[in-house]
């Protein structure tokens, strides 16, 4: 077969398919949906994974978080002995030991979080009071949107100043200017010096097990020294009807390393430093780098799964196509006989029917690619959800649809070619 004959066979294929527009269209639909599904699902998954990775990256791939957690024994102990003061968590001692022993450690950011109501005028909000150091925004990539953050000076002098998260300020002050106003926590007044916007979802997550339905980013930041001096280390937990006192020195400590490579090797060192003089497991390590890697591994698994599903859907589409092509071969038996009588070889007949199947698959595949792309575009632009169409998914979907065409087209085509010319001509 030379070039122009192939073009002619393709034209012939279009002609034959146009003879049954509805049937051809419906047959293609299987392909369209299969390819569309692959591209769309991969794009959605890729988008979600991209978002998660960005969030983790903001948390810092070269950071490690150590968080105080209430040991399981004390949780159950608290319910039997009511007014037990539960004492656990990371201590200042731990923090200074980490600072002293870990190589490549750049900064240590301590945080003490207490849950207390905050008042302004007659408004009240349940908040997290976060006692921390001045470099908190730099460390967590939070954005100071108005005013300024805490300073060394505030820390040194235990000033009664605070910074509010943007959304808390809106809830507490409405459209008044919160800057330079005084908010009250218990019997203490604090001057609002700035507004902060947290950047990552992880930061907004409540520490410990918060009651549900509470705004996640109602944070009040004040110097750690101020928080300690004014309210001590006692925190009240009045959840689930019980009343419980907790004494936690540091709710959370963030360690920043000079480079990402130092993160992995530091984990055992941190554990060793923390386990010293420690009887109970009252802390947890959160390694964003590991989470990042876990997300990537999960993504790879999801992608494989999607490919399996895609293969199955394309398989179903392919079987549909084969079914239709077999019906077509039966229906056009006489045409096959005539063509054979007029000099067509078996190869010519195979080519003719294979090309028809491939046309169906190719057009279906193209429509699916277009549909997937369109859907991804619409999702990104109209719903502002990250959707990333990857090249490999387009190539894979398209290649698979072609492969399906070849595999499922070959059998009907061979059957057509195997027909005895006389029998085919006699077919009514």
């Amino acid at each position, binding site marked *: 077969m030379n070039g122009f004959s192939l073009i*002619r066979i393709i034209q012939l294929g279009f002609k034959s398919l146009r003879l049954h527009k509805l049937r051809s269209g419906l047959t293609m639909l299987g392909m369209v949906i299969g390819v569309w599904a692959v591209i769309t699902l991969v794009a959605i998954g890729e988008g979600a994974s991209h978002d998660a990775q960005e969030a983790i990256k903001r948390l810092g791939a070269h950071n490690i978080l150590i968080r105080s957690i209430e040991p399981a024994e004390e949780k159950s102990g608290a319910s039997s002995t009511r007014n037990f003061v539960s004492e656990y968590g990371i201590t200042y001692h731990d923090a200074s030991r980490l600072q002293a022993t870990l190589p490549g450690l750049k900064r240590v950011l301590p945080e003490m979080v207490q849950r207390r109501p905050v008042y302004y005028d007659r408004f009240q909000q349940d908040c997290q009071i976060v006692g921390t150091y001045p470099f908190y925004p730099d460390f967590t990539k939070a954005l100071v949107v108005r005013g300024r953050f805490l300073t060394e000076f505030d820390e040194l002098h235990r000033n009664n100043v605070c910074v509010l998260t943007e959304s808390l300020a809106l809830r507490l002050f409405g459209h008044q200017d919160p800057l330079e106003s005084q908010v009250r926590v218990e019997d203490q007044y604090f001057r609002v010096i700035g507004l902060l916007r947290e950047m990552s979802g992880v930061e907004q997550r409540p520490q410990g097990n918060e009651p549900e339905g509470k705004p996640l980013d109602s944070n009040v930041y004040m110097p750690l020294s101020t928080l300690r001096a004014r309210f001590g280390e006692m925190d009240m937990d009045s959840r689930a009807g019980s009343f419980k006192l907790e004494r936690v020195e540091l709710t959370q400590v963030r360690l920043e390393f000079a480079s990402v490579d130092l993160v992995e090797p530091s984990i055992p060192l941190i554990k060793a430093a923390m386990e010293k003089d420690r009887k109970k497991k009252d802390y947890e390590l959160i390694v964003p780098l590991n989470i990042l890697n876990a997300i990537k591994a999960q993504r790879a698994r999801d992608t494989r799964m999607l490919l399996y599903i895609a293969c199955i859907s394309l398989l179903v589409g392919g079987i549909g196509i084969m079914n239709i092509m077999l019906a077509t071969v039966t229906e056009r038996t006489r045409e096959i006989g005539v063509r*054979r009588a007029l000099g067509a070889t078996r190869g010519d007949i195979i080519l003719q029917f294979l090309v028809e199947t491939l046309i169906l698959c190719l057009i279906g595949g193209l429509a699916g690619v277009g549909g997937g792309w369109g859907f991804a575009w619409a999702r990104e632009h109209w719903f502002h959800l990250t959707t990333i169409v990857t090249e490999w998914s387009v190539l894979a979907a398209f290649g698979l649809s072609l492969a399906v065409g070849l595999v499922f087209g070959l059998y009907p085509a061979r059957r057509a070619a195997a027909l005895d010319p006389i029998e085919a*001509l006699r077919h009514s």
Partner: protein
Amino acid sequence: MLFALPMSNKAIIDIRALTKVYNLGQVKVPALNGVNIEVLEGSYVALMGPSGSGKSTLLNILGCLDRPTGGVYRLGGEDVSAMSDRQLSQIRGQRIGFIFQSYNLIPQLNVVENIHVPLFYQGRDIRSCYDHCAGLALKVGLRGRLDHRPMQLSGGQQQRVAVARSLANNPLMVLADEPTGNLDSTTGEEILALLDELHADGRTIIIVTHDPKVALRAERVIHLMDGLVDRVEHHERSMVAAANGAKGRAS
């Protein structure tokens, strides 16, 4: 004429002791039981006989659409019995033109495209031989119908397309199995007149028919009976000329 071929007295078809047995599993149906025929190049032969006598079976074997069970079939000196499917396809495509009782045009193609089909399988682009195909369509009287589909044509017109198609690859031999069987007598006459023209051009024509009037146009009528040659009638050239309506093209 357009495709005049040189006349000669060479045997184009030479079959010896040809048998055909249809094998239906348990039962074996003998259709041809040892047929000997020689057909000279450029002659006009009619096959007659009662239904089931093996006319179509013989014609299909002559057209290389089917293979004999036994015996020898030489087409232009070559032994066809041993050829591969591919070679037979090539012979059909290059040297034989078929005309069927039920026209057998391809529904999705128009008149010119239908005529082009045999050339297509010889690897010839329709653009390069459009004039040739359209010329054949005009020759069989299909002016103004070149881009019509078979569905839009009458039976007689469809059979004209089939005649034109059988000529597309300029074959040595045209085989027709009851070409007028589905047509009224006037339309049938027109088709037969076309065949006469082909014969006048020097082509070998073999026609299967039940109609003695049709057979009268042939130079030789072979009567089959139960898969055997029963008898052979020879017609005078003058008779043929008379049957041709004194067209004076017999030489």
